[in-house]
């Protein structure tokens, strides 16, 4: 990077913004750790191993104290159901969404006539603009009954499949938009050179163009996966909100960390000991850590941590 006559003002101004973006995470992380500390101590390892979530008896006067921290009698804060539901639904969503988005993006770049391209792009951006509560409503009234009546053996459609399908639809526009842009930004020469060597157009795309924008696509997959892990409202409306029951099939009700935080926040506020709220804080922290791990793993898988070209 050239340093010829760098203007200090611009440099420091943009640097300050970068520092803010960088520091924000630590601020939130620090806040969550401090906030959730009593829960981390109180819950111990049971937080990771127990499938039981119980805020205890709000209307009894009995309390229970562990590691110096107090909660309502009968309280147990295990995250296993929520963590497994989060990972399962997001993975399943990505299995559907990644190929779908690639196909759609390629169709838009290479097959939609130039005159119709703005229309196709509008469809993608419109899809990104559908509020998650609307996806949730549509899922609840259109998708869930379909799954319940046509596919599910019990007649109940709320659960893993419904949550994953809604998530897939929600992340598709994000991946399509990024994939389309990176493929489009790639010099046409790669495609043309491959064609000149005798490839079919599909081979030119899959063997020459896509590999050259691999990191850009991987980046968009990461973004989408992050969005899926944390998606709240739509999942909440179709997941069946499992509690104390681990996922045991594609139709089984599940729950996700984000959905639990929003659906249980209100009840947690009734816990006079405050431990339920802090345990939700610990759940948020867990989701944070999961995202960190996902990012780290994905980075190792790609180019050993290099984001060179910085497309992704």
């Amino acid at each position: 990077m050239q340093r010829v006559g760098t203007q200090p003002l611009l440099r420091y101004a943009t640097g300050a913004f970068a520092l803010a973006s960088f520091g924000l995470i630590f601020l939130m992380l620090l806040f969550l750790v401090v906030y959730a500390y009593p829960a981390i101590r109180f819950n111990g390892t049971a937080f990771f191993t127990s499938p039981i979530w119980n805020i205890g008896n709000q209307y009894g006067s009995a309390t229970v104290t562990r590691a110096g921290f107090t909660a309502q009698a009968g309280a147990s804060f295990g995250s296993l159901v929520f963590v497994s539901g989060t990972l399962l639904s997001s993975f399943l969503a990505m299995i559907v969404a990644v190929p779908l988005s690639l196909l759609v993006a390629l169709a838009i770049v290479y097959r939609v006539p130039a005159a119709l391209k703005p229309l196709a792009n509008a469809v993608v951006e419109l899809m990104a603009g559908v509020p998650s509560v609307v996806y949730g409503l549509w899922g609840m009234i259109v998708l869930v009954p379909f799954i319940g009546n046509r596919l599910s053996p019990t007649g109940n459609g709320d659960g893993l499949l419904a949550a994953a399908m809604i998530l897939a639809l929600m992340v598709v526009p994000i991946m399509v938009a990024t994939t389309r842009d990176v493929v489009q930004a790639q010099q046409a020469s790669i495609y043309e050179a491959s064609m000149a060597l005798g490839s079919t157009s599909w081979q030119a795309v899959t063997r020459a163009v896509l590999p050259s924008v691999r990191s850009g696509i991987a980046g968009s997959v990461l973004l989408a996966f992050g969005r899926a892990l944390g998606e709240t409202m739509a999942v909440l409306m179709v997941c069946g909100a499992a509690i104390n029951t681990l996922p045991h099939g594609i139709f089984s009700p599940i729950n996700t960390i984000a959905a639990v935080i929003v659906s249980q926040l209100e009840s947690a506020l009734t816990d006079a000991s405050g431990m339920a709220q802090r345990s939700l804080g610990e759940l948020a922290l867990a989701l944070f850590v999961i995202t960190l791990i996902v990012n780290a793993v994905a980075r190792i898988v790609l180019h050993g941590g290099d984001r060179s070209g910085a497309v992704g």
Partner: protein
Amino acid sequence: MRARRFAFVVLVSVALASCAPAAGTVRLLETGSTLLYPLMNLWVAAYQREHNDIEITTQGTGSGTGISQAISGVAQIGASDAYMPDAAMQEHPMLNIPLAISAQVIAYNLPGLSGAHLHLSGPLLAAIYGGRLEYWDDPRILAANAALRGRLPHHTIVAVRRSDGSGDTFIFTQYLSDTTPSWRSGPGFGTTVSWPASSTVGANGNPGVLQTCEDAPYSIGYIGISFMDQVNGAHLGYAALRNRSGAYVLPTVQAIAAAAAALVSATPRDERISLIDAPGAGSYPIINYEYAIVSAHQPTTQMKRALAAFLGWTISASGGQRPAFLDAVHFIALPASIARLSRDQVGRITSP
């Protein structure tokens, strides 16, 4: 092009400019119970028409949020389906003021049987939601429904519950706790409970439960009585519940009023009492007070006056207790002596 961008800027500016508040207006914030929210909206809209020096914002955020934000002072009125627990009261003494009486229906989707009212009891519901009673033609259900013998299907019961924290869950589980010792010592009651590990399905909000029951045959769910019209519209059946006297009672206006009347004398001065499973042969067992959780100490005289005037209006027979409001959500008016207790509590709101 430019014109369109300009139009957007103008739109935003107009939106900004139109925000100037009227001077001398008192602003109140009501937040909390989603069960009381529809009625609160009707009340505020009507009250506003007569009083233009007050602005009351209403938010349906859930009872727990209502209580917590009334305590923290973010909201002046915290709406709650449940009275505050003793532990919370010791830490933050607040006024718990009943504004109306609500009830709950147990709805089910049994093809061909929606016209018939099943007889159900606390222990039967506890067994269903506890995963210990799986089929509609279980002998325990048949025992209470001799008339339906042979018509109940051998099909798994899909038990639908709320996924969000909810006053509906609170009063439903309170009914189970009060009638079934094993439920009391197990999941207990609250706006959310640790449901036994069985295949209950969680749905969001009353409409979610309604929708799930409508979609899934052989399902059962508990739904706030404000959704009575929708329950009928969806051709769901609803149960007659066994009360303390052993009678099976439907959620009629008379049965709810009878239950409320039965507990008038038991209601203490601070009005924190459960109305679940009231005595009396004609009493419907799942009813509750809808509370306004209010701090007794308001920051300004103006605020205190406005708050007391509005709350006083909601509980007056010529104001908020008129059938025009209550009937829309199938709520029941406070009995006169309870309205008096509530008025006393409103009178206890002070300012420096």
